[in-house]
């Protein structure tokens, strides 16, 4: 009956204000949850309860021999008939000195104040079928005993009672999960000591403590062990997979970066070594040519050498452009195509007109895309120069909704697209090239109405955009390059 000693509890904490301590003490004493004592205001119905208790409760039972510090495990099975609907099931129990109560192997309550009977409402726990009540009782010293009563009321007003009596069993099983594995084998009947108020419990129990109604613990499927294990496995798998992916990704990024650096290096090497040598040869050739007399045959040969070297230098420029990763931008592509068109068409009767979007961005334009697009445009220019008989050609380049369009338009004699048979390899080539890079190629023409070729390719959107922005800031790109080449 003595409540825990709050003073002891609080003494450890260095409370300075005594009043504070008092308030807490009072609070502690008044709010003992869920207990009704005979000597407290809530316990006025003591007499009624004691009168009823004799009916509710069975007899004191225990193991044959009682001794100090003894743990006894008692149990009893009962059956709720199929189809019976339990409307009320109330259980009263106390054990001198304490107990742990199990229903069907699951713990549903504990008690340590043996002078108070605990009342459990287990209506919701009792479905039809076999049930096992199990009590692990603990006796501190001298006599030990369990007194118990369960009233089950069903929908048809029938009342079944289970009380502590000689029908209970004592099991020698031990271990934490004994209540879940009770066996009739090895159990022996409990010994009946006497009815309520028999010696040595003449005046006890004298109080009642109500436990709030118990409801079955809903075990959702995700709370089951195997589900959780599976989830854990899936999570672990996902983490492992993600980290593997990340590793792959970083390896790929590294490889890509390496490739870019290598391409830039190769471009620089070609440019620096081959280019410089070639220029030197070309100059030597020019000088040598001039040192020859006007009419000597060697002079003509030197002229040929020089022309060859010039063509070589031009071809080398194209290779350097294609290889150099620094040229992987839409702006560089535009510049290059325009320049190519002008140089190429300057040798023909076609006047080249450019209509190019100003302020082309430094958006990434990967090698396969720009190379294929360039070759397709080259094909289109070639066709125009060879077949169109036009005198003016428009090269238009602009962006539209994350796509880049290159349009080659001439004012030549045109052709009938339905008549353009297999002979026009150029058209198939262009379409194939555009297919390779996910672009489209539209050719429209009619006899006498010129020819219009529209190439459209998707532009990379943001991918690596932020990454490149730092390095390819359009203002500084060239400057960085100069300083690198210089150093």
């Amino acid at each position, binding site marked *: 009956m003595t409540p825990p000693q709050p003073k002891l509890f609080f003494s450890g904490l260095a409370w300075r204000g005594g009043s504070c301590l008092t308030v807490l003490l009072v609070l502690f004493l008044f709010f003992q949850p869920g207990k009704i004592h005979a000597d407290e205001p809530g316990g006025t119905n003591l007499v009624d309860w004691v009168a009823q208790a004799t009916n509710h409760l069975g007899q004191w039972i225990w193991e044959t021999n009682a001794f100090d510090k003894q743990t006894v495990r008692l149990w009893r099975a009962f059956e709720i008939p199929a189809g019976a609907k339990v409307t009320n099931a109330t259980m009263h129990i106390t054990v001198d000195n304490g107990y742990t109560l199990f229903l069907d192997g699951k713990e549903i309550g504990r008690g340590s104040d043996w002078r108070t009977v605990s009342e459990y409402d287990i209506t919701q726990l009792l479905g039809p079928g076999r049930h096992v009540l199990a009590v692990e009782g603990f006796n501190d010293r001298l006599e030990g005993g369990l007194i118990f009563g369960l009233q089950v009321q069903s929908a048809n007003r029938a009342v079944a009672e289970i009380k502590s009596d000689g029908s209970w069993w004592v099991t020698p099983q031990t271990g934490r999960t004994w209540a879940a594995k009770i066996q009739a084998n090895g159990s022996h009947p409990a010994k009946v000591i006497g009815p309520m108020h028999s010696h040595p419990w003449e005046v006890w129990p004298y109080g009642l403590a109500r436990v709030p109604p118990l409801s079955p613990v809903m075990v959702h499927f995700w709370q089951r062990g195997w589900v959780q294990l599976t989830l854990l496995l899936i999570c672990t798998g996902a983490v492992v997979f993600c980290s593997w992916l990340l590793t792959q990704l970083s390896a790929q990024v590294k490889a890509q970066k390496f490739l870019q650096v290598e391409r830039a290096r190769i471009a620089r090497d070609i*440019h620096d070594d081959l*280019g*410089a040598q*070639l*220029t*030197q040869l*070309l*100059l*030597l050739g*020019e*000088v040598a040519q*001039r040192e020859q007399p006007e009419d000597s045959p060697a002079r003509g040969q030197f002229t040929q050498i*020089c022309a060859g*070297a*010039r063509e070589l*230098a*031009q071809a080398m*420029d194209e290779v*350097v452009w294609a290889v150099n990763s620094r040229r992987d931008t839409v702006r560089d592509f535009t*510049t290059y195509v*325009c*320049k190519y068109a*002008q140089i190429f068409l300057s040798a023909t009767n076609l*006047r*080249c*007109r*450019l*209509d*190019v979007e*100003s*302020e082309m961005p430094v958006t990434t334009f990967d090698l396969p895309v720009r190379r294929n697009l360039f070759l397709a445009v080259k094909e289109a220019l070639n066709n125009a120069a060879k077949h169109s008989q036009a005198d003016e050609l428009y*090269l238009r380049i602009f962006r539209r909704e994350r796509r880049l369009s290159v349009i080659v338009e001439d004012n030549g004699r045109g052709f009938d697209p339905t008549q353009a048979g297999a002979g026009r390899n150029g058209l198939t080539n262009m379409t194939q090239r555009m297919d390779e890079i996910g672009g489209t190629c539209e050719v429209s023409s009619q006899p006498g109405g010129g020819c219009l070729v529209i190439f459209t390719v998707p532009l990379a959107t943001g991918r690596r955009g932020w990454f490149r922005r730092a390095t390819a800031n359009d203002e500084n*790109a*060239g*400057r960085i*390059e*100069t*300083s690198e*080449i*210089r150093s």
Partner: protein
Amino acid sequence: MKSPVIPAIVARPAVKVVLVEDKPGVRESWVKLINSLPGFSCVQTCASGEDALRVIPSVNPDVVLMDIFLPRMSGIECTARLKLQLPKIQILILTAVEDDELVFMALEAGADGYLLKRTTPEDLKAAMLDVLGGGAPMTSEIARRVVESFRRAAKQPKLDVRLSAREEEVLILLSKGYSNKEIAHQLAIGAETVGSHLKHIYEKMHVRSRAEAVARYMTGKA
């Protein structure tokens, strides 16, 4: 390209050319080539930008041929510094690869034109005569960049150098691939006027870049 002033040149003493080129072999060939052109004489060669800055003011040449990649100080930086000292000097940038980025930077820094190293001696001669005669070669790509750069600069109040409407017109036609002659025809002006417009555009670029150049190159951290 035509060379309308040849008779005058022939009458005058040879055009004095200074070559800035770091590779000895290439340098020799260039000298021979320049000297082989009638009316031109390579009076001095410099192996580095620093050399050029020291020597050129005393030589006072008509044309400087400047390699773009020089050890330490780049040809572009050297051009900017030279133009600060001698605004009247004509500088042609020599480049192995046609890189618009670099060419545009050189033009901004004050170069009066550029030449590919693999150019024919005839074109070299024509280009030198062109800059001496007040012309200014410009490709459509460079023209587009010039327009862009002036439009961008217009947003910065500090550098208040603007193109006239006619100058912008010329540039835009140029960027569309029209030749100087075609532009002259379209705008109903003389071909020489187109040339002088281009020259003015270059000068405006130089004026603008000079302020920048002072900051960029003269603080010594470039």
